[in-house]
């Protein structure tokens, strides 16, 4: 990709691969599962052209970043620790944060632990997940959707990796990326099978080229899925370790964007939480909630122009000087 610089930064005891472009206020992009810095390809180019310094790491366990072997090295405190060290390495006090899926979950934790480091947050797909002090996270999901809910199926170390290996990396990634079925993903018993997407198309959607898919496949063939699955295996650990923040309010200004076909938006009672007042209660500076019609989970890849515009409009409110910088590119 033109003008994108790749480098490796030592953060929090690991080597982190970072893709970067542009000059100006830092916009930190956090990908989700099972993705990479590359998920932000459209946003990186757009924000860089508009006077921002786009920074997109591969998170711990992904792509060209180190993947520590132990499951317990993937709790939210480790990942946020990596990112605080990354932000420090950029020499800035604050960043604009744009995050999607698991990246969004980590983004919420970053806002919770170090609100001083985040100027504003554009959150894609996954709203704040309020901690229930009486119910461990995965236990609650299991009670709601049963043992074949994908998050429950991801828990046992090695099991989902073996099931994914049966269908192959490209199948897994294509299955997930092309999913347009709302509702909680329930996997068939004992195998990956139809996985996330019972209606997986033969041809790729217009927003995902074979080259794009090949890039994802090449990286996941190298690393496997264990690093990425380990995030899910720390849901309950994260719950246990974040008891100090039960009931906390997130004070960072937030814009939330999702698609009405997104399985996250259409499960876990999140629609009610997002629109019924709970979200605003927990995030008093939630400034905007956008639901894109006919858009599914990977909205930053599927609807890049809209997402780019939404990001720019929001963060530009907090740094008007970016207007001036944009003229020079």
């Amino acid at each position, binding site marked *: 990709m033109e003008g994108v610089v790749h480098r490796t930064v030592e953060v929090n005891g690991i080597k982190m691969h970072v893709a970067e472009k542009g000059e100006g206020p830092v916009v930190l992009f956090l990908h989700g599962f099972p993705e990479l810095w590359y998920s932000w390809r459209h946003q990186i180019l757009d924000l860089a052209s508009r006077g921002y310094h786009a920074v997109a790491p591969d998170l711990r366990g992904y792509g060209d970043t180190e993947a520590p072997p132990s499951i317990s090295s993937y709790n939210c405190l480790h990942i946020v620790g990596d990112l*605080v060290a990354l932000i420090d390495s950029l020499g800035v006090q604050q960043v604009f944060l744009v995050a999607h899926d698991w990246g969004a979950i980590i983004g919420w934790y970053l806002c919770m632990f170090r609100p*001083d480091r985040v100027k504003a947050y554009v959150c894609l797909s996954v709203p704040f997940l309020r901690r229930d002090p009486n119910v461990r996270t995965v236990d609650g999901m299991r009670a709601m959707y049963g043992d074949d809910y994908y998050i429950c199926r991801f828990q046992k170390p090695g099991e989902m990796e073996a099931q994914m290996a049966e269908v192959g990396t490209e199948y897994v990634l294509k299955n997930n990326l092309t999913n347009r079925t709302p509702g909680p993903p329930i996997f068939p018993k004992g195998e990956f099978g139809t996985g996330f997407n019972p209606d997986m198309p033969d041809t790729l959607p217009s927003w995902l080229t074979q080259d794009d898919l090949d890039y994802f496949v090449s990286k996941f063939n190298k690393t496997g899925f264990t690093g990425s699955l380990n995030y899910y295996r720390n849901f309950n650990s994260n719950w246990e370790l974040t008891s100090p923040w039960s009931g906390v309010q997130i004070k960072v200004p937030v814009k939330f964007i999702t698609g009405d076909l997104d399985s996250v938006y259409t499960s876990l009672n999140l629609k009610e939480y997002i629109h019924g007042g709970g979200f605003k209660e927990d995030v008093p500076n939630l400034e905007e909630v956008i639901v894109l019609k006919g858009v599914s989970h990977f909205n930053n890849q599927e609807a890049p122009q809209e997402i780019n515009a939404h990001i720019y409009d929001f963060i530009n409110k907090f740094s008007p000087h970016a207007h001036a910088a944009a003229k020079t590119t």
Partner: protein
Amino acid sequence: MEGLQHRTVNVNGINMHIAEMGEGPLILFIHGFPDLWFSWRHQIKALASLGYRCVAPDLRGYGDTDVPASPTAYTSLHVVGDLVGLLDEIAGDQEKVFVVGHDWGAMTAWSLSLYRPERIRALVNISVPFTPRNPKRKPLDTLRAVYGDDYYICRFQETGNIEAEFEQIGTARVLKEFLTYRNPAPLYLPKGKGFGHAIDSPMKLPSWLSEEECDYYASKYEKTGFTGGLNYYRNLDLNWELTAPWTGAKVNVPVKFIVGDLDLTYNAPGAKDYIHQGGLKRDVPFLEDVVVIQGAGHFLHQERPDEINKHIYDFFNKF
């Protein structure tokens, strides 16, 4: 103590015993090792009479509070989670509270200040200054390098090891040794040597500590053992690993720091420099006062209660 109430509150998955007295703005008292709510008996009484609601829990692993079995259930995240849960439960209407911490309780208070600064109106911390996280070096590695393997914290690491030695010495005696310790030099506990003198050698209690008070301590530790308290030390490296997000973070609450000049924490290499030459102020920008009490040891608030009570009152009264 008249007017003092004891009750058990269910917080963060454990049953927590608290002692409570008085009405008014809440002061949360956080004890250290090897200690109990009882450490604060003089402060509770005095501050309650001055119009504060004093709350002193037994922390997890101690006294009449639960002692979770898992050694990794004693990270600063767990302990602070208990205290935030406690505040939500008993003082949900008070957004900000006063906090007093001592020893491990001071470390917990520093953590609470980093995690939930918006819940603290002001903090009086006793004995243990803030230690900024060194991203390049784990705490145990540093302690081993500076002090060697016989340093008490290093000797506390292996589960069961020091417990067996404490059992040899006897619970009551161990507590007396800690409570009366006045040696400013680092504490070494070489294997089999105990506290450096015969375990039946006579031990004269200072004027501020009675046999009855020692009996109270002994009765509680005979019940729980020392493992709960020791587990805090066993999570030093895990705490370091888990607190990466707060590397370089400052403590942004108003603080008064008090220490006795005979306290081994004050006399540790680099401590005086850090406290007085700007390090502590850099890391705790709202540090308002540093008080060094001459001729006083580690359990300052028990040894010099009137002075400490006055320091606490004078500070909190400003808010």
